[in-house]
């Protein structure tokens, strides 16, 4: 496993045609910390994530990992991403084991790969015998665990989790969140945790950044931001958390 590393966005701008999706964002995910990124759809938070892993081109600024640019070529990928929809993020024609093994650094023997797949599946609390099944046989929550295992297969130092629980039933969401916290502690990962649900972010992140219209409008330690929001939009988000009135 790579050593915990800091992920830093410096004045990052991403444009789609004439639309500026991310507008001069600076944000740091400190080594071994979880930073929550909240905002509504269209605020640019997913675009920021895609830019970090090289899926969206930068129009300006820089994204660095431990001081060096994020490698977007070759097999060494210390920055990994978990996607929102576990139904579209696994190739329906590849077994779980193949999907996880694909993300491993090359060079290992077949037996080593198999052992590593089993270890990773156990890490995300899935029965290693699942390696031989196709994703169609798994539930949404199980698929999302596979997606986590695949991200970890690349031996990342930093993981970006993009709305990884919003496509799941609430009954499964809890299990995935527990897993994220556990993996973060055991592996000392740095995580950028993107979500529109403040209650979820509060549970996993120590720092939180609030994004709106491609800019970061507020940032700080989670307990401070949630207890004493400094921006109107953060207050609006807080007011909208369902069940806030029910004990």
């Amino acid at each position, binding site marked *: 496993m790579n050593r915990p590393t800091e992920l830093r966005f410096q004045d990052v701008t991403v444009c789609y045609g004439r639309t500026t999706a991310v507008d001069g964002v600076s944000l740091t995910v400190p080594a071994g910390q979880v930073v929550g990124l909240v905002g509504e759809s269209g605020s640019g938070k997913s675009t920021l994530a895609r830019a970090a892993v090289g899926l969206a081109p930068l129009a300006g600024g820089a994204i660095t990992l431990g001081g060096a640019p994020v490698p977007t*070529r070759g097999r060494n*990928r210390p920055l990994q991403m978990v*996607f929102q929809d576990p139904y579209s993020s696994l*190739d329906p024609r590849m077994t779980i084991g193949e999907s996880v093994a694909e993300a491993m650094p090359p060079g290992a023997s077949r037996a080593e790969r198999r052992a590593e797949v089993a270890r990773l599946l156990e890490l995300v609390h899935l029965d290693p015998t*699942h390696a031989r099944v196709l994703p169609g046989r798994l539930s949404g929550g199980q698929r999302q665990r596979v997606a986590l295992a695949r991200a970890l297969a690349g031996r990342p130092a930093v993981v970006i989790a993009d709305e990884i629980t919003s496509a799941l039933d609430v*009954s499964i969401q*809890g299990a995935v969140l527990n897993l994220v916290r556990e993996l973060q502690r055991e592996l000392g990962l740095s995580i950028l945790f993107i979500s529109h649900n403040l209650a979820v972010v509060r*549970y996993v992140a120590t720092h939180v950044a609030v994004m709106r219209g491609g800019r970061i409008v507020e940032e700080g330690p989670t307990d401070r931001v949630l207890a004493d929001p400094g921006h109107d939009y953060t207050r609006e988000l807080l*007011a909208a958390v369902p069940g806030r009135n029910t004990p």
Partner: protein
Amino acid sequence: MRRWTRVLRTPLGLTATVLTLGVVMLAVLGPILWTDEANAVDTGNILAGPSADHWAGTDNLGRDILYRTLVATRLSVELALAATAIAVVVGLVLGTAAFLLGRRLGRLVSAVINIAVAFPGILLALFFAVVFGVGATGAVLAIGLAGAPAFGRLVQTLVAGVAARDYVSAARVAGVGRTRILLRHVLPNISEPLVVNATIGAGGALLSFAGLSFLGLGVQQPKYDWGRLLFDGIGSIYVNAAAALAPGAAVLVAGLAFNLFGESVAKALGVGVVAGIRVPDTRRPVAADDAPVGADLGDHDADVVLDVRDLEVTFPAPGGPLRAVRGISFTVGRGEAVGIVGESGSGKSLTALAVSRLVDEDGSVTASRLELLGKDLRGPDNATQRRMLGTSLAMVFQDPMTSFNPTKRVGRQLAEVGTTHLGMSRGQAMERAVERLDAVRIADAADRVHRYPHEFSGGMRQRAMIGMGLMGTPALIVADEPTTALDVTVQQQVLDLLAAIRAADDVALVLISHDVTVVGEVCDRVLVMYAGRIVEELPATELATGARHPYTRALVAAVPDMATDLDAPLATIPGRPVDPADVPPGCAYAARCPLADARCRTDDPPLVATTSGRVACWHAGEPLPDPVLRADSARFETLVETS
């Protein structure tokens, strides 16, 4: 593989398969069996009509035309397949180039394909035929290359579709090269439509060959294919019509065989993954044995808007009927908000669809009572009933993007309700639409009615959908996960809107959601569904503290809120929901329940009244073991076999 065998289950598919196999067999065996007969010159019998010796007559050298037609099958099919192969290979190269070369060069290739597609195929073929010279080789290249742009376009579109999927992004993030992604992820996932289209293409190529040979640009003497025979036969059509008809019929049959085979494969593959034999349409909700159909049951309570008793929704499945909703009863009072919660597959959405008569046509809905405002909903689907449903029931769906017709202006779609159900003129209906959009707090409604759905944001679309439901004077709004696809801030606006409408017009609301907190915030009463049954009914205020069923308590505990203990892991529900095809005896929740004992696994608990609601559990209200429902109690999730 099972999906491919489905091709054989339809009469058309079976016929097409038999025909195609026949043509292929003939292509293999024809020249082996009948070459001598086909080449036998009978100078005493030149240009003869059909006779007992020569069923289709003879040509200008006295050769038997029927045998020649049969023998020509091989060359005709070979040429068609060769041309198709060229079209497929060139098409694949062109179509995948855009994916492999990256953005700029890809655009150039796309432009080339677009221009090539715009050329008429037969013109291209003629052009290539001239370039490559007259003869079989030239014709193969001409027809192959002429077919390539269309195939390339198809490949390009399919590749673009798969390339946008997250698993391709995930592979790219993992550092997998483009070629490897193409071979491992993209091509396998588009192979089925490609194979199907190649088959149909082969049929087309066969016809094109006949055309080219007929024009004298194809196969040259002494070789012969069907087109050549047709060309020769047409000259003597007034002497012996069969000389032209026999090869013509062969072209027709073979072309049809390939096309139909391709079509039926496409159809069989496109049906989706749930295999099943369709049963006759039983969409009409039918009465259970003891109740008269369509009759007013008499004992209608004026304050009850919706009265559901023993509602069952079943779907035909290979292993016997699948009971998705298993006999549920509930009522909704005037102006009351009732929430239905449960995991995916619990039957909550089907309950809503059954009430609004929108269950898919292969599903069967039965109930001993299903009444909206005292009117029986189980009667035949006629104009009166549609009007009643159209005006007194409003339905709001999860995805506001797909619930509007994207090609019609929003105002017109709202006005339609007024003109079809309320007898309004178009002008009146439009006025009402503006007023209703205003009522659902859409700013500048008079201008917004002239906009298309895509010009609305997600939250605005959802509000417009509610506005459409309010075109009549609904007594009941059924909202199926109305906020799941929306952001939290927008979600709040939509929930507030529903609450306001309810308060203003005394409209009842059935709110379906997987999120207990959302339901708890909006509703008066909550129904908790599990495996097609109601397992608990309770006042919303008691959700957090007064729930008695272990499932309800687990659902409540599983959702983090702003007061969740950050040091403890979140409560989870181990295992996975029950497969409706395989509901165990006893309590359906027993396998995941920390309180379950032997009795729970054998006897299904009845839904009994409590002080404030109903509950179906042998251990209702008993304290849960600590730590509650930890994920670690089941270190590995077990894989449930799905048949």
